[in-house]
């Protein structure tokens, strides 16, 4: 079926890749929320997941490995009317871009970060990622990965991230609903999406996830930070999906514009001549 966000670019993912579910869910969410392509900016890093923006008709900034968040933060700050989504894989967001991820939690920019978490490096063909299980065997870690997997949800909740959710790319409809909630959330929203790598991850497969994932029901209160932290630690036989934590707090752009007493940078109609002549009097 035709969609406003359809792109003509040929998709470079493996057949059956978990990325397809995320692409479909994101396009569905954008359409159902009534956005038009020119209002949307998709920012990504490098990796198979980071190619996604090319497969959606929208504004795109496909930048450097690990660096999508600083770019997304700046785009949203300069033009708050844009819907800004940063998306990439677990290696890009939590490994190469770990520091930016950490500081985005503090700043609370009004962006949505979608992480395609397949617990493996796909594009470089199969090395352990920051979220790979301890003992994960690969060409680069032939005797098993020595490190514990990063828990992005616990990390985000511990730092009072504004909105923290987990989705599963094997369930497009439910993922679409989570994305819709994140996109309409005012503040930093993180969706860690479990996304099986059909080529390089023989452990965490679709079947493996399907056996374990379950959705949080209506009785779950995502406003309780301690409960959310407990929930985020659940992993193994049962893996919770849905909005795990939410806490509304002022966004980066709210705070910075109130400090400099401006509404925005782009639409306010800067008179550069006036600014210049005003500036010349700065030291007099």
């Amino acid at each position, binding site marked *: 079926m035709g969609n406003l966000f359809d792109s003509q*670019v040929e998709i470079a993912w493996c057949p059956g890749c978990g990325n397809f579910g995320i692409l479909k869910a994101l396009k569905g969410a954008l359409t159902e929320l009534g956005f038009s*392509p*020119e*209002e949307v*900016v998709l*920012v990504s890093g*490098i990796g198979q997941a980071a*190619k996604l*923006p*090319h497969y959606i*008709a*929208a*504004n*795109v*900034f*496909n*930048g*450097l490995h690990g*660096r999508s968040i*600083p*770019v*997304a*933060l*700046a*785009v949203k*700050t*300069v*033009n708050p*009317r*844009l819907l800004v989504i940063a998306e990439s894989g677990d290696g890009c967001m939590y490994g190469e871009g770990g*520091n*930016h991820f*950490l*500081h985005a939690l503090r700043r609370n920019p009004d962006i949505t970060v979608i992480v395609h978490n397949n617990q493996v490096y796909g594009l470089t063909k199969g090395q352990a990622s920051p979220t790979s299980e301890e003992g994960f065997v690969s060409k680069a870690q032939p005797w098993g990965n020595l490190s514990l997997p990063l828990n992005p949800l616990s990390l985000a909740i511990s730092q009072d991230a504004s909105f923290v959710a987990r989705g599963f790319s094997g369930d497009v409809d439910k993922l679409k609903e989570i994305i819709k909630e994140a996109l309409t959330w005012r503040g930093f929203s993180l969706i860690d999406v479990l996304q099986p790598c059909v080529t390089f991850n023989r452990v965490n497969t679709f079947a493996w996830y399907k056996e374990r994932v379950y959705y949080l029901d209506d009785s779950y209160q995502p406003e309780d930070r301690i409960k959310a932290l407990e929930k985020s630690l659940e992993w193994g036989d049962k893996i919770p999906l849905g909005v795990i934590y939410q806490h509304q707090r002022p966004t980066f752009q709210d705070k*910075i514009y109130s*400090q*400099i*007493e*401006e509404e925005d*940078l*782009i639409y*306010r109609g*800067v008179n*550069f001549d006036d*600014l*210049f002549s*005003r*500036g*010349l009097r*700065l*030291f*007099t």
Partner: protein
Amino acid sequence: MDLNLLVGGEAGQGVQTVSGALSTILQRSGYFVFSIEDYQSRIRGGHSFTQVRFSTNPLRAALKEVDILACLNEETYQLHRRRVKEGGWVLGAVGNEREAHFQHFLPLNFEKIAEGVGNKIFANIVAVGAILGILGLDLESADSYLEEIFARKGEEIVEKNKQALRRGRDEVIPYVSSPLIEKTRRGNSSLLVLDGNQALGWGALLSGCQFYSAYPMTPSTGILNFISSHAKEYGVVVEQAEDEIAAINMAIGASYAGARAMTATSGGGFCLMAEGLGLAAMTETPLVVVDAQRPGPSTGLPTRTSQGDLEFVIHASHDEFPRFVFAPRDPQEAINLVIRAFNLAEKYQVPVIILSDQYLADSKWTYENLEVKERPDAPQFSSFPLPYRRYLISPSGVSPRAIPGLGKALVVADSDEHDEFGHLTEDLNLRVEMHKKRMRKKETMRKEVRLPYHREGKDLTLIGWGSTWGVIEEAGERLKAEGIDSGIIHFSEIYPLPLQIEELFSHVSLPVVVENNYGGQLANLLERELKLPFPFRINSYNGRPFLVEELLLKVKEVGKNG
């Protein structure tokens, strides 16, 4: 009249306050001031000093010889006593009077005198008072300066500082038979004192810079502080990034979204930015980056000066792409070059790198009629045929730039090699066309670059770039006074080398290239591009700027060999 003051002490004793006070007081008394700061990478202890030179004529370099040396500690005396002129003054409870050959040695214990006012922390202001006493300046300008800078700390602190100032002056008065300044000049309110960091920040504000992201790094931090302090007046979003990588990526994101954006750092931070520089080049996003150089490699000497990054910034980031590299010779030119940098970054959609250094960043210059000749161009965003091709392969290499959200155009930018629409491609023929398109800009860019400042000299030509202009000029004048006709070629716009550069170098007397680095990086660049030898080089890499007398000696040495 041309006098040179040196005040030194430990970090924490308020040497920088002394520098600010003396510079401002002398400027308000109608003098041209030139000051430099020399400090260590620490918050307390060690040795730091300021040199404040002032004159009735404009100044542009620092001198070695000192007229008044004020020592807040013993080390200052030991390190600098040999620089005091015959007939000069030494102030401070230091050394041994008998060993002093100076005409005027006043063993003032600044701290003890300050305790008389209530606290030894006023010792630095006592020293200022003593210096003003020897100079014979009235305290009017000093009082108003103290009121301004200490107002926030309350009336009592202001009063105590004023008392400290008077105690210092009163201590020296009995020994001053004739003040160094015969008559206090009438205040010249049009004199403006400016350091390099303020100038770079001011240039950004004048350009309509709307977004500034940076990670603090000496000696560039002053730019961040300056722009932040004016962010509200000029509507600038300023963000202290988590690292230099974030800083440059934020600036690129802001520029992509339509804001004028800048970042600044020093060499080590620029290393981290190298990846982002390539991103700006590949996505053809306008960007202005300041590198305030300090000695390296690695952490090097954080608070010292260097011109060691020229070859690095010309080549930084992998593979090839066009860029501009500018290096202002003084704060006035820094303002103008930042405006030019923003204009050219937008016109060619390329990164522009401005090389400053610790010497330029921290030295204060005085201007009577500051000239800001450059004007910021209005941003050019228009509508385009759809579907929009962000990287349209054009004859000039520059493609029409649209801004996301401002029209129907979908703006697709990619760090991968891409097609005209911005989508990643593996088509290698297209790759060749895209690379040629980007590189084509360099030809037109060369035409934009202005020729270096040039004054002919029959005997020799001193060649330099960036912050060494003033000292080269003054050394050249002294050579002339000694009968050596010395010319100068000084680059402020270094890369790409301007078109008529070969012609300019076709008739130059003995060229001597003066640089604050080991290898002679400008000389190397000129050799490579002009296919001419530049064997005579004066290189200093001890972390300090050239002083006039030192450079003069070195030029004479080269003269002997050349």
